[in-house]
C-alpha cells in the first residue's frame, strides 16, 4: 500500500480548493422555493480524535465554507431540514424543535452480503462482488422511478464498501416516517438474521416488482455465480443446497464438476418442480434473489432525522471521495478508480498546461473574481472534474422543478 499523507494535512487543501461548494449549496438550497430550507438543515461533522458534533447549521454558502474550512471535518453528514435553525435548537421551546423534511435515502452496504459472497468479507470489496452493487442500483433505481414515480435520484459511492441513494424529489422529501418505512419494505425481499437459513420466500402471485427485479438479477447471475464459485467449493455448495427443497436435495453433483453444469442441474430440477408443490415452485428464483437481491438497511431509510454521509465527503479509512455515480456508465464504474483525496491534491500541484495560461491573464485583469475562478478551475484540473460535472447535470435536472414552483408562487403560472 502506498503511504498516504495523513488526512489532517490534506483536508485543508481539499476544503479550500477542491470541495465543490457552489454546486453543494445549489443542491441544498433547492431553488429557494421554501424559506430557510438551507438555514434549517442539520449537518454533523466528525472531527479529529473522533469528536462528533451535531446540529451544525449555516445561514449562507459563505458561512458553510468558512466553517468547514475552519474545522476541516474528517467526515460530513447531512441530516434533516428542521423547524428551526439546528444550531439554535437549545433555545427553542422544548418539544417544538423537530425534523420537517429530508431526502429519501438508501444505504447499501457490502457487509450485509457476507453470508453470500465468497471473495471478500467485512469491509473488503473487490471487482467480483462489486457486481452486487451494480445489481442493487439497477433494481432500486428502476423501482424508485417506475413504481414510485420519483425522478431525481442521486447515487453516490460511499467511499469504501457501498453505495447511497438520495431521492431528492419534493414528494420524497416530504414523506413521513411511515411512508419511508413502507417504501423500504416494498423494496425488501431478503429477510432474516444470522439464524435464518432461507431468506427469500416467493409465493404466487409473483408481483410485477419481483418479476422485474428478477429480470435484472438474471442478466448478471450466471457470470456472478461463476466468479463467486458459488457452486464450486463444497462449503458454498452446501449453502446453496440448504435453500433447495428437501425432496430434490438428491441432486447428484458428483457427476457434474463444473459450477455451470451444476447450476444447469438445479435449473432443470426447478422447472420440474414448477408443476409440483406450489410452495416450492420458485426455489431457483429464491436462490438467485438470496444471493443477489439488494439488501438495504431499513433503519437508514425510515428516519426523517437520520444523518447520512454527504456526497463529496472523504472516507477517513480509504481516502476516497464519495462521488456521485453516473448511471449511464454504471457497468464500467470501478470503485478502485475513484479518486482519493491524496490523488486530487497531488493533481493540483501539477504545472498548468499551455491553454490555461491565457486564462491566467484574464484572471489578473479581473482580481475581484480571481478567487472564485481559481477555485472553479482547480477541481477541473483533477480527477474530481467529471464527478462534479455529473453532479451539475443532476442539479440542472431538479432545477426545472424549482423554476416551475417559483413561477407558481409568484403568480405567473
Amino acid at each position, binding site marked *: 500500500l502506498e503511504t498516504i499523507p495523513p488526512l489532517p494535512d490534506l483536508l485543508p487543501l481539499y476544503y479550500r480548493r477542491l470541495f465543490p461548494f457552489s454546486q453543494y449549496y445549489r443542491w441544498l438550497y433547492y431553488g429557494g422555493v421554501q424559506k430557510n430550507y438551507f438555514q434549517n438543515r442539520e449537518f454533523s461533522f466528525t472531527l479529529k480524535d473522533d469528536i462528533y458534533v451535531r446540529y451544525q447549521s449555516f445561514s449562507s454558502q459563505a458561512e458553510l465554507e468558512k466553517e468547514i474550512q475552519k474545522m476541516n471535518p474528517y467526515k460530513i453528514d447531512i441530516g434533516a431540514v428542521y423547524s428551526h435553525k439546528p444550531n439554535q435548537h437549545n433555545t427553542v421551546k422544548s418539544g417544538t424543535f423537530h425534523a420537517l423534511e429530508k431526502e429519501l435515502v438508501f444505504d447499501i452496504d457490502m457487509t450485509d452480503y457476507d453470508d453470500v459472497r465468497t471473495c471478500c468479507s467485512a469491509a473488503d470489496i473487490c471487482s467480483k462482488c462489486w457486481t452486487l452493487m451494480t445489481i442493487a442500483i439497477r433494481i432500486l433505481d428502476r423501482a424508485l422511478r417506475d413504481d414510485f414515480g420519483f425522478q431525481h435520484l442521486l447515487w453516490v459511492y460511499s467511499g469504501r464498501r457501498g453505495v447511497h441513494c438520495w431521492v431528492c424529489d419534493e*414528494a420524497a422529501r416530504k*414523506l413521513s416516517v411511515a411512508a419511508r418505512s413502507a417504501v423500504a419494505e416494498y423494496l425488501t425481499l431478503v429477510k432474516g438474521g444470522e439464524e435464518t437459513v432461507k431468506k427469500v420466500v416467493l409465493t404466487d402471485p409473483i408481483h410485477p416488482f419481483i418479476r422485474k427485479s428478477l429480470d435484472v438479477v438474471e442478466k448478471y447471475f450466471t457470470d456472478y455465480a461463476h466468479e463467486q464459485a458459488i457452486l464450486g467449493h463444497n462449503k458454498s455448495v452446501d449453502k446453496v443446497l440448504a435453500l433447495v427443497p428437501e425432496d430434490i436435495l438428491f441432486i447428484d453433483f458428483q457427476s457434474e464438476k463444473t459450477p455451470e453444469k451444476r447450476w444447469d442441474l438445479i435449473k432443470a430440477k426447478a422447472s420440474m418442480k414448477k408443476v409440483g408443490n406450489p410452495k416450492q415452485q420458485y426455489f431457483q428464483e429464491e436462490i438467485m434473489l438470496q444471493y443477489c437481491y439488494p439488501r438495504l438497511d431499513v433503519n437508514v431509510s425510515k428516519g426523517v432525522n437520520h444523518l447520512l454521509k454527504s456526497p463529496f465527503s472523504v472516507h477517513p479509512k480509504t481516502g476516497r471521495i464519495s462521488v456521485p455515480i453516473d448511471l449511464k456508465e454504471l457497468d464500467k464504474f470501478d470503485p478502485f478508480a475513484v479518486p482519493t483525496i491524496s490523488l486530487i491534491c497531488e493533481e493540483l500541484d501539477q504545472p498548468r498546461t499551455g491553454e490555461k495560461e491565457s486564462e491566467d491573464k484574464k484572471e489578473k485583469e479581473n482580481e475581484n473574481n480571481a478567487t472564485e475562478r481559481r477555485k472553479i478551475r482547480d477541481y477541473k484540473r483533477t480527477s474530481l472534474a467529471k464527478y462534479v460535472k455529473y453532479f451539475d447535470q443532476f442539479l440542472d435536472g431538479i432545477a426545472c422543478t424549482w423554476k416551475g414552483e417559483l413561477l407558481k408562487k409568484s403568480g405567473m403560472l
Partner: protein
Amino acid sequence: MEFSGRKRKIHTSPHAEHYAHALQFYEQPPTENICLSEFETFAVDRVKLLKTVENLGLSYVKMSDDYNKKLNNEAKVLNFPYRPDSDHISHFILRLAYCQTEDLRRWFIQQEVDLFRYRFNDLGREQKLEFLHRNNLQYNAISDKEKVALKDQLISSSYGLSGVTIEHQDFYKVPFQDALDLVRARKVYLQAGYVYIPHQDIITIVLNDFRTKLSKALALTARSLPAVHSDERLQPLLNHLSHAYVGQDYSFQKNVGKISLEQIDSLSGKSYPLCMRQLHQAVRENHHLRHGGRMQYGLFLKGIGLSLEQALQFWKSEFIRGKVDADKFDKAYAYSIRHMFGKEGKRTDYTPYSCMKVILSNPPSQGDHHGCPFRHSDPELLKQKLQFYKVSPSGIEQVGESNFSLNHPNQYFIESQRVLSGGKDIKREMETPQRLQENSAGSTAAREAANASQDLAGMTDLDSIFQDP
C-alpha cells in the same frame, strides 16, 4: 352500530338520524351533557372493549372467522356500546386518557383501528359504499381502457384477483402515500407513484385515513389536557384509565444491584427467555453485538437489575476481547450504554422491550442476533436450539399451541427466578387464553422451565384497579 349483526333493531336515541349508523370517523366531538357516573362507566366499558380487541388480536389472526366470531361474542358479553352515542362519547373520553404519551397513543390508535376494521368489514357491500360516500372519501376509478391495458399487472399484483373479477369491479387510482399498508406488503400494483386498488380492498385506505386523523387528533387533544386536568372530577379517573393499560414496564429501579456480573452466565442458562439467551451467547462468542442486539439485550439487563457501572463493565470486557480497544469502546459504545440508562441526550430512561416490541419492530437482518426466535428464526433451527437448551421433545411439540400469557422478556426472568427460589407468591389466575400469532411465545419453553402457572399481573384486570383505596 349493532355489534352482533344485522338482525337486531337499532335502538333509537334523541339523535337518531345522526347516529343511524354508529360506525364513524369520530370527527365531531359529542355535545350532549352526561352525568359523572356515565362518564366513568362509558370510559371503563370502552377500555374493556379495547382490551378485548387487543387480546383477541394476539390470539387469532385479525379478521379471520375465529377472530370475528370471538369478538362478536365478547362484545355481546360486555354489552357495549349500549347505544351509538355511548360509543361516540366513550371514544372521546378515552382520547383524553390516552393522548399523553407516545406509548398510550400508539396503543389506543391500534385498538381503535382494529375495532373500526372489524365494524367496517361487518357491513354489507352497499352499506360500505354508502359509508364511504357519506364521509366524502375521494377516490378516482380508472377507465375501462386503462383497466384492460393493466390487466396482467393487476392480476399478478393481488392475491385472489382473476381476469373475471377485474372486469367486474372498479379500480381506484390512489397516491401511494394514502395506501401505505398495501404498499408495504406489496399487495397491490404500483406505478408512477399510484396504487391501483380494487374496490374490495378499499378498507385499507379507509383505515389509513382513520389512523392518520386519529393520530393528529390525539396530538391536538394532548395540548388541551392541562385544562381538562384542572377539573378535579376528571383527573383521577383519567389517570386510572391510562394506568390500566400500561401495566408493568419492568423499568423499576428497585432491582438495581441485586445481580452480580459473575452470575450472568448461569442466569442466562436458567432464567433467560430464548431471545436473550441467544443474544448473550452471541456476545460471549463474537465479543461483539450490533446495535439492535445491544439495545434489546442491554435494556433487558437493566431490567433484571444491572447497574450502569456493571453494564459498562460487562460490555467493555467483552468488546475488548473482540476487535475494539478500550479507547474506542469509551468513545463509540459507552455513550450509547449511558444513553440506555438515561444519562445522556434526552435523558429518557428507556424501558426494556416487551415481546410485542421485539417481534414487531426492527426485524433482524444479516449479522444480527436480536429479534424473537419464535418469530424470526427458521422452525428447524429453532427446534434444534430448543433441543440444545434441553427442552423436552413434548415441550417442543407444544410450541405450536400454548396457553400461557408471556408478553415481556423480563416477566419471564422474574417468574423463572421466583419459581427457582421456591416462590410463594405465584397467583394461579388464568384469564383469556393467549398466544402470539403463528408461532407461540417462548411460553412453552418458559413453562418447561418454570413448571407452574403464571402470574398474569401484567395483564390488566380493570376491576382491581378501581378497587384501589
